[in-house]
């Protein structure tokens, strides 16, 4: 091999190495971590800042987390007030990384806010409207919203890494096809329940988007944040409603203390229908978005049938 060929091989080799450096992404949501990994594939390295099992309503980034976020080129944020620390975080990390706010591409549901017994030391930065309602930040419980966010992440990655366009487009298309299949499977699962049985009693008001898509009425113990504490009058009213409506099961959440729910089951005769993943992904079979949605739909239907 002559020297020209060797030089060309070296240049190509370094070029290959340069393009093989993954795009650094930091994620403040377990759902967004999963979507970014599906869209980005080997071209991205996603660092999960909020991990499975952490309550994102009360999460605070540590100095170590801030450093990791500063080193990222893209930061994935749920938005709609879910990350109460976002403004502080953005000013800490400066203009380095680009922030992608997923809530910007979904149509928010407006929910009643229950501030009874609310701990104002906790984060509580939900966007209030004039009528006292707040945007429900749990948008991922509607598969359609996740489809929109998939396209948003695809476009953000293409902007940061134009050479990967064909990969990002192909990966996003494949993931969207799986999401459509997921949406159909969830519809088929829920169709086993008569409309009259579609009453969802949960720890906190996190399943509004799921309820809207599938015709459920949600009766939450807490408000849209896990730091909203219910008054004893609200719990008494809820017990009365559960009795009147003949609700068969109520549901706990993976990161909640189910003590209040246990008390309600004792007084109403409704059973604990199982654990739902409301604020993000779990581990094992619920460690992916698709697994989490299938688990939630299956648990709800099995509990209420």
């Amino acid at each position, binding site marked *: 091999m002559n020297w020209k060929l060797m030089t060309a091989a070296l240049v190509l080799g370094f070029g290959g190495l340069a393009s093989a450096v993954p795009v650094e992404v930091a994620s403040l949501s377990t759902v967004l971590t999963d979507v970014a990994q599906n869209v980005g594939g080997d071209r991205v390295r996603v660092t999960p800042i909020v991990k499975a099992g952490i309550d994102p309503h009360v999460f605070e980034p540590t100095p170590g987390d801030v450093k990791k976020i500063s080193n990222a080129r893209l930061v994935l944020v749920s938005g709609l007030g879910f990350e109460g620390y976002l403004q502080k975080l953005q000013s800490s990390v400066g203009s380095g990384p680009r922030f992608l706010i997923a809530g910007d591409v979904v149509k928010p549901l407006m929910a009643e806010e229950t501030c009874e017994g609310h701990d104002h030391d906790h984060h509580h930065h939900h966007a209030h409207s004039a009528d006292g309602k707040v945007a429900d930040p749990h948008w991922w419980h509607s598969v359609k919203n996740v489809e929109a966010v998939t396209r948003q992440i695809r476009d953000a990655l293409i902007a940061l890494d134009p050479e990967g366009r064909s990969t990002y487009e192909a990966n996003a298309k494949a993931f969207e096809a799986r999401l459509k299949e997921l949406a*159909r499977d969830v*519809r088929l699962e*829920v*169709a086993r*329940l008569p*409309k009259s049985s579609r009453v969802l009693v949960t720890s906190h008001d996190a399943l509004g988007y799921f309820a809207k898509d599938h*015709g459920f009425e949600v009766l939450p113990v807490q408000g849209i944040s896990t730091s909203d504490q219910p008054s004893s009058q609200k719990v008494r009213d809820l017990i009365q409603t559960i009795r009147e409506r003949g609700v068969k099961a109520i549901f706990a959440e993976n990161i909640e203390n189910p003590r209040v729910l246990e008390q309600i089951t004792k007084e109403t005769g409704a059973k604990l229908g199982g654990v739902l993943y409301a604020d993000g992904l779990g581990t094992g079979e619920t460690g992916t978005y698709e697994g989490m949605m299938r688990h939630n739909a299956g648990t709800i239907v099995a509990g209420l049938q």
Partner: protein
Amino acid sequence: MRGFPLLRFVLVALGLCVAGFPVWSLTRPAPPAVPQTPVRTDAEHREVELVVNTSTPALVRISSPDGAILETVTPTSSASARFAQNASAPDDLVVSARWEAGGEQALRVRIIQNEETLLDRTLWAEGELEDVIGFQP
């Protein structure tokens, strides 16, 4: 045979139709088997007609949480059934179909009450279809 040629043709065609009728009636697809769902007519429920049409013959099953409303046993392009539906909160319908013909196929579902169409949806699929039709509250 003597006579006017057009008259001869008409007579032969009539003869073929008369001879062919028993063969057609024996070999035509059986009408769809419709489960006999008891039709409740209390204040909460309304009696409606479910009408299904497909682009080419298909095996069709339509069910609600109470069970099957319509189920064909041979491929058909058209079937109907009557059932009782909750008027204030109609249940979802699970629609399944299987076509032998290839390519994209369509299935139209209509819910009719006293000549008023309450729902009219067309679903498309290739080979097999399984999906849900929901009523908006």
